[in-house]
């Protein structure tokens, strides 16, 4: 369960969001430049809010009142970047293993098999390729595997379909939904596309100029 209330002054407006999501898919919907991606970076700890709090499974990750600000390394939050951000100088295998070599993860112990995970995403045969040799959809799948292999307690997805053609996108959308049911952790997904939002979102938050305009529960979920 994720609970957050955040304020961040940006140069052209003040971002104010309140979120609450159980093990569901929460979609942040809005035009580009409205503060959706910024919200994700605030949650992940890549950018510091001015005020507010973030709680994940009753653990405080950030609190301006309590002067708590956990670094992104210890937040247990997976992040799927819009451009995938796969390390270009590493193979698919090295990319996916990267998170497993972190001290924190090695101490945690329990392990998923990276090869199995890649196989389940249909990209197991690409394990020795470099990111530049992958298609857009393959990159997204590898990036998903890389983010999930460290078993995050929350997954943030920034416009995961923006670089994909229609067919790939529809396929990946369904896979994401299946994946969510399997993982049972909250997903926060950013998109500007209403159709994606309606298809995926259990709840939809519409943001405009940094302000939450509308909270809605998705009843016609596919």
């Amino acid at each position, binding site marked *: 369960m994720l609970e957050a209330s955040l304020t961040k002054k940006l140069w052209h407006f003040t971002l104010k969001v309140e979120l609450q999501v159980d093990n569901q898919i929460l979609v942040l919907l809005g035009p580009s430049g409205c503060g959706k991606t910024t919200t994700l*970076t605030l949650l*992940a*700890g*890549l950018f510091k809010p001015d005020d507010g709090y973030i709680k994940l499974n009753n653990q405080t990750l950030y609190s301006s009142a309590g002067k708590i600000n956990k*670094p*992104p*390394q*210890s*937040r247990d*939050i*997976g*992040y799927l*970047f819009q*451009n995938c*951000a796969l*390390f*270009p*100088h590493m193979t698919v295998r090295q990319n996916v293993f*990267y*998170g497993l*070599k*972190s*001290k*924190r*993860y090695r101490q945690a112990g329990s392990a998923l098999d990276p090869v199995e995970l890649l196989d389940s995403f249909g990209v197991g045969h690409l394990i020795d390729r*470099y990111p*530049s040799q992958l298609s857009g959809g393959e990159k997204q799948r590898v990036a998903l595997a*890389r*983010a999930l292999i*460290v078993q995050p307690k929350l997954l943030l997805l920034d416009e995961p379909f923006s670089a994909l053609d229609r067919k790939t996108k529809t396929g990946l959308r369904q896979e994401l939904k299946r994946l969510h049911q399997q993982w049972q952790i909250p997903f926060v997904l950013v998109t500007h596309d209403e159709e994606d939002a309606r298809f995926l979102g259990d709840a939809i938050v519409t943001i405009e100029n940094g302000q939450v305009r509308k909270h809605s529960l998705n009843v016609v979920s596919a």
Partner: protein
Amino acid sequence: MVFFSEMDWHPVILSVRVAIIATIIVTCLGVPLTRFMARKEFYGKDFLEAAITLPMVLPPSVVGYGLLMLIGKNGLFGRILADMGVTLVFTWYAAVIAATVVAFPLMYQSAKAAFMSVDLDFEKAARTLGASEVRIFFTVTLPLAWPGILAGLVLTFARALGEFGATLMVAGNIPGLTQTIPTAIYFAVESGKDVLARTLVVIITVFSFCVIFWVNRWAKKQNY
């Protein structure tokens, strides 16, 4: 040309040694400093940046004069060092210092451009995967900035090898002790030793060409 066996190889050996040590110092100081400067904004950054780049545009004689004011017998640090019984001027250490100061801005400029070209999302992704900042630097930032840093390395080495003006002022031209290829060429020409001058010119030109050629070839293969 004089026969190689009869030639005094001291200036050649000293030049290469000075250039290698200066390149190592510039790399060890310059790369971390540049990484810091490329990612952080702080008060006085522009000022510091201008100061770092200055030796690149100043006449070498001005750099040499400045170094004498610092490490000369009556210089700011020179006096302290003299009390400890250490003299830097007119030793080959002074040649290393001169080469380091003059070549530093070249590494700074190349490495800065290289670090700025690394997409910040890669570092952010590594952070969300739990990697420490040190690990991120060595596994993500540095490998991705490597071609630019390598270019800086070559420029630094070439500049250090060719340093003349500042070296002459702080290290002098003592044959066998502080005489480098560039100073040896100058004094060979001045005293009419054309054959020696020509030989040294050929050596330094061929050597520099080979280094740059080889490094460029190698860097080409490293691109992703």
